[in-house]
């Protein structure tokens, strides 16, 4: 049984039909990516899975449990973590305080200390800036912090929303390397990206979204070679 099974969900913003029957699965240990243009419904899909939005129809099962209607904060205790779009660090708190907030859902002190070491090993930059106020970090460092903070909940499924947005190319590489590293250590990843080439180069499988529907689903390598994907998302003729 898949770790995450999304079955034909329909999500609305008021009267606007944003998701028109999305189905996808994520297996334990995979990196799965959702790619698509602006407004295709990538972020809405993530927000629906994480409980911030409730679908009107359809079902979502996570670790064998139906989670439709479960509030977002409870899902964190089920080891599902999300890094929101635009990073959303607590700008006025220090790096360390941000990471502590990430471990809010836990009370095993030893485990928290271990995970903190892990985050610092993954992002040495954060260790250097431990006491700095998060709002003064660079964009790339803030993305590292948001990812590190999500890791502090020791998630089994980590969902990232546009981690490359607004970052310099060299930082994009660093962030994607970290994602691969996190995945190797055993965390399953669901990645939403506009930078389709980057996302497909690290993912196992990919889904292509268009106006609230999945139009294509395949192995990442196949998608990369798909003529339509190349044309629409990879900028090749």
């Amino acid at each position, binding site marked *: 049984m898949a770790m995450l099974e999304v079955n034909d969900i329909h999500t609305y913003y008021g009267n606007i039909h944003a998701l028109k029957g999305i189905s996808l699965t994520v297996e334990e240990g995979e990196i799965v990516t959702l790619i698509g243009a602006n407004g295709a419904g990538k972020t809405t899909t993530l927000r629906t899975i994480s409980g911030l939005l409730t679908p009107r129809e359809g079902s979502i099962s996570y670790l064998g449990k139906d989670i439709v209607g479960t509030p977002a904060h409870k899902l964190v205790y089920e080891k599902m973590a999300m890094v*929101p779009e635009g990073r959303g660090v607590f700008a006025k708190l220090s790096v360390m305080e941000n990471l502590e*907030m990430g471990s809010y859902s836990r009370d095993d002190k030893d485990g928290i200390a271990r995970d903190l070491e892990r985050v610092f090993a993954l992002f040495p930059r954060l260790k250097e800036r431990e006491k700095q106020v998060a709002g003064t970090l660079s964009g790339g460092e803030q993305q590292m912090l948001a990812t590190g903070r999500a890791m502090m909940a020791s998630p089994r499924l980590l969902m990232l929303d546009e981690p490359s947005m607004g970052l310099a190319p060299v930082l994009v590489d660093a962030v994607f390397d970290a994602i691969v590293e996190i995945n190797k250590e055993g965390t399953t990843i669901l990645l939403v990206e506009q930078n389709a080439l980057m996302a497909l180069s690290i993912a196992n499988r990919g889904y292509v979204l268009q106006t609230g529907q999945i139009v294509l689903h395949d192995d990442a390598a196949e998608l990369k070679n798909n003529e339509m994907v190349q044309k629409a998302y990879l900028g090749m003729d």
Partner: protein
Amino acid sequence: MKKTFTTKEIINKGLLAGAVVLSLSVIGFIALLAERELIKGWFSLGHIFLVASPFAFAYVTTRDMEYEGNAKPLQTGFIIGAVASIPLIVLSFLAVAIDIRQFLSNVSPALIELLTFGQTPVLGSILLLLLFGIIGVFAASFNIIPENIRHPLVNALVWTLGIATFSEILLSRVRSLLGRGLVKVIFSGKSLNPIFAIVFFAAVFGFTIWWDKRGDSFKEKLENLAPAKRKQLSQGQSILLMLVILFLPLILGSYLTEVANNVGIYILMGLGLNIVVGFAGLLDLGYVAFFAIGAYVMGVLTSEGALGLDAGFSFWTALPISVIVATLFGIVLGIPVLGMRGDYLAIVTLGFGEIIRVVAVSDLFKDTLGGAQGILQIPKPEFFGIELVQPGELYYVVLAGVLLAVFIATRLRDSRLGRQWMALREDEDVAEAMGMNLVSTKLMAFATGAAFSGLSGAIFASKLTSIFPHSFNLLISINVLSLIIVGGVGSIPGVFVGALVLVGLPELLREFAEYRLLIYGVLLIVMMLVKPEGLLPDQRKKRELKSEAELDWAEK
């Protein structure tokens, strides 16, 4: 950033200063304050406010001035001061020429006499111009004289003017604590004796010079003490502070203790609102509602009048009930506003505050709440059979409430719930993504804040022995919010400072009462410009503003 000023700019500054002092004059503020004489036969508080504006403008302008080249700060100060007097001179000539009180009813003969020093208009105008010019030079000189003279000078000025301003209250305290003999030396009439003022000024001046010189070695000595000794010293300090707080009513006398009690009531409310606004970042403008609920529950339960329940509730049994009812209402208000943020939340809470007052004043519950007549004959608290009637006795009830509230607020701030509030204040979505239950976090903030306010209201009702709906108007919410802002949002010691400044001082300067809102407005604007983090800010807030400044700097 130093800059050079052209003559035109300097004259503009002077006219601006003149406009400020002119408006203070025509609204009657200066003439009113002139009734409080500071130093017998010399000058009054009105004079101080008269020269405050040219002083400030001259000081700030010469501070920002480029001193290189042919800039002459003293001359600049004189020009600003002299120009500032022109609008007032025009006013005093107008007052002679036409019946100006038709248009500006506050331009009284007393004001004109003050402006012309009781002389003829021409001579008076020259004197005023010279005075303002000298004040400008004086203000400018603060930027030139060396620090080791400036500091003692500022200290001596502030202290002398300070005790002179409060001389009437000090007089009565000195009389009852130290005897009549001393009163004759220090005061003359209700104001300061000129000779004493000079001696005092010189003493503070001399002491500060000595302290600046000797202070460093003294501090070094203190730091070189053995840790055990130092600990003893700090323990001694806290014991001393506790003793002072415990015996404060004896030192203050009944009038000042009554003022302290009022300040205490506001501190209690401030501590509660500080949790809602400062910790959790939920802007609540209807905070007075819970104060009213606490007061009304206390009134209904204990009143010995026609409206009381007559169920044998004493102050102490009714107190927890008042707090619980206020808390419940806090939750009731919290539920509908859960999904609201920022401005919308402020508007809804504002409405809630008004609803409670309107319900209390309406005829709907006239039989239980007394409508516009309010509830009378609420008994004062009793303590083991002793009725606490005097301000000095009620002081301890207020003190107990404040100490309890400080303890709870401090513990909550450092708790897991405190962290939740902090995350909520910074970013609701991320807080939820971290696994925080926003519903319970928000409701806990509203409930705790309401509990403090309810406690405050209950004590207030029992202290006054009667309550009326019009005591619970919007202004109280605004007052409490202002005192938090002035003290420093999110800072617990800041609540004390804010309450002392915004509730204590106006009580002591009764003349200000009429202009209270004007002063609040000016104070808030000045605070936001000069010290946006508040008088005693929270450590985090300080860091935040500092980091923003660093960011600005980095961008440039």
